């Protein structure tokens, strides 16, 4: 259903200046608009629609720009949401091109509407249009530029998988615990907990007979994994995906991405309980398995698209790649520098590092190295076992 068609003949609001001829029209149009936004992925429900209605009652409806600003402040709660809102607004409230804001005679303003009343009105309208426009929106977009190559995954023997899991559990535990700045009380802490000490002393008439202590709380570290699955990493990719799968299962807070020329987030796919099903899903989900490598671009797009959500002073970023970069070296350096600054630690695991005579001379690796805290091999189980030492710090 077209949202606009709910407006009983277009609705007075769609004309400019915004003039509610009948109040019912404004509300049903507003609800229609909110449902459109919801269909496009904004978190807009009846409560937000009710706030929008209250906002409209508070501003000058004759003023188109003001109406727009008011609705945007209420309904779009982030920069991305604002972009979606902008497109939807001008689409939905179609104002005639020529309409100049009328200077004479204010439109009849909505009387002040309180929260409960607004919600009631909105809810009445909200139910009527249910089930229509949400599904209409958003067809999945595919980029034809990416080479779509599906990979067959083999499987490791059950013994090997068990061993991997055991090693990884040990590694993950070491990585996962870090000291927080928050305190909690503890029997063998290092800082005096004056609040509890005083409290306890009251039992003895204000005499302090024992000191209660607190210590810093151990807090979970977040891990972000960026795994290179390009052609040059082909030999290792299969193994590494299993590594990642185990890591993600041992620790709750792992966010996983794979990259070659572009970046894909596979955290969701790896969340499946069954490793084989997870691997299948990953191979289906990742469009450019074993293409070339653009490490800089991939890291940058991670920073831009996911950085705000997944990076903090408590995030350890692990990059698994051989460093053979076919992209722009300056871009890689800039991206690595930003990554280093926004994360707690950057660990680079390189499967080639163990090969005799390997030196990190390929351009990508050389450019990235200054921004890496730990640079270690990762080519077999043995190397992963040794890794524990690096991650413990």
């Amino acid at each position: 259903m077209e949202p606009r068609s709910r407006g009983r003949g277009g609705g007075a609001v769609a004309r400019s200046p915004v003039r509610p001829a009948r109040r019912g029209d404004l509300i049903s149009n507003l609800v229609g608009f909110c449902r459109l936004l919801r269909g496009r992925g904004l978190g807009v429900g009846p409560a937000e629609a009710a706030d929008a209605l209250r906002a409209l009652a508070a501003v000058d409806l004759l003023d188109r720009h003001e109406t727009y600003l008011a609705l945007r402040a209420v309904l779009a709660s982030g920069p991305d949401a604002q972009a979606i809102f902008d497109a939807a607004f001008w689409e939905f409230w179609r104002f005639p091109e020529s309409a100049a804001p009328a200077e004479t005679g204010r439109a009849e303003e909505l009387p002040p509407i309180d929260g409960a009343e607004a919600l009631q009105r909105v809810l009445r309208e909200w139910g009527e249009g249910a089930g229509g426009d949400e599904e209409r929106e958003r067809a999945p977009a595919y980029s034809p530029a990416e080479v779509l190559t599906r990979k067959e995954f083999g499987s490791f023997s059950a013994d090997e998988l068990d061993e991997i899991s055991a090693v990884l559990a040990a590694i993950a535990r070491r990585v996962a615990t870090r000291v927080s700045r928050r305190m909690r009380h503890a029997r063998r802490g290092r800082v005096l907990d004056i609040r509890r000490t005083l409290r306890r002393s009251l039992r003895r008439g204000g005499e302090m007979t024992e000191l209660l202590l607190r210590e810093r709380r151990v807090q979970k570290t977040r891990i972000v994994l960026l795994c290179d699955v390009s052609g040059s990493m082909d030999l290792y990719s299969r193994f590494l995906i299993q590594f990642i799968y185990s890591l993600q299962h041992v620790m709750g807070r792992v966010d996983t991405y794979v990259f070659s020329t572009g970046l894909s987030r596979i955290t969701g796919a790896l969340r499946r309980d069954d490793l084989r099903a997870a691997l299948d899903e990953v191979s289906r989900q990742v469009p450019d398995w074993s293409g070339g490598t653009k490490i800089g671009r991939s890291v940058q797009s991670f920073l831009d698209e996911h950085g705000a959500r997944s990076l903090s002073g408590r995030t350890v970023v692990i990059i698994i790649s051989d460093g053979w970069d076919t992209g722009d070296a300056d871009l890689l350096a800039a991206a690595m520098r930003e990554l280093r600054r926004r994360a707690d630690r950057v660990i680079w695991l390189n499967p080639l590092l163990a090969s005799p005579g390997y030196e990190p001379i390929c351009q990508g690796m050389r450019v990235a190295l200054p921004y890496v805290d730990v640079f270690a091999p990762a080519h077999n189980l043995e190397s992963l076992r040794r890794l524990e030492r690096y991650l413990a710090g």
Partner: protein
Amino acid sequence: MHPEIARIRDLLEVGGYIADRTIATSVYLSTELRKPLLIEGAAGVGKTEVAKVMARALQADLIRLQCYEGLDATTALYEWNYQKQLLHIRISEGNNRPLDEREAEIFGQPFLLKRPLLDAITRAQPPVLLVDEIDRADEEFEAFLLEVLSDFQVTIPEIGTISATAVPYVVLTSNRTRELGDALRRRCLYLWIDYPTFEKEIEIVRRKVPTISAHLAEQIGAFMQMVRRIRLEKTPGVAETLDWSAALLALHRDHLDRDAVLETLGALFKHHDDAAAVRSQWLGLLLDGIAALEERGEPWSHEAVAEAAERLPVRP
């Protein structure tokens, strides 16, 4: 325009803040709908200033809660005045009143130190509560704050539940170093503040540094528009523009040239890598851009400056 929005816009102007209607409308709606206002934007665009203006518009007090990593509920709410409690225990040592009574006494209001959140909900007149840089506090604190913002009451085990005497106006700011939770976003009105446009920035410079020549102000404005296209550790904001303008003026510079910029680089770039990158890599190109604008002769417009900025070889 709604008269109240116009009034807030004027107040923003008086505060040296050249406001656009977006900010004024958001501030007005936040006070009118009594919903917290969440302001996001890069560092240095003047987010905190908005809360100050809101307080002035409402003639209310401003209470500020600066967030930092490790900030917890207790620090934000209340603390007991331990020294005073200890003294009180010592003073009342001789009397033989029951323990309960003495305990109740030292955990009473006179021994309570109000921290910003508790302070904000126990005033006679509703104040403006500024929760600054909420993104620096952790998720646990965010959840706690959400709770306080929903109920406007807090529970202190020793005293009981304290409900708000007046519900404060709330402004939250975030530099987006981490993404805030959806629950918090949905509770707030949202305002995004961008870096100012060329014209707006010149006006800000002229107003805050009135002795500056029109020509230098234009050059500074254009320089800033270009500099912000370069990927830096810390993109300079309006505060840096003003510092820099003052620095140039203090050195009696009336136009931008290589020496003038090099001497005052520290006012503009607060990060060593940025200063180094601009000195070695970008300065020539930036000054070329200014020179190109000079050659056009006509008054510098937003478009002309944008065009010059476009020519910088920055990667997308």
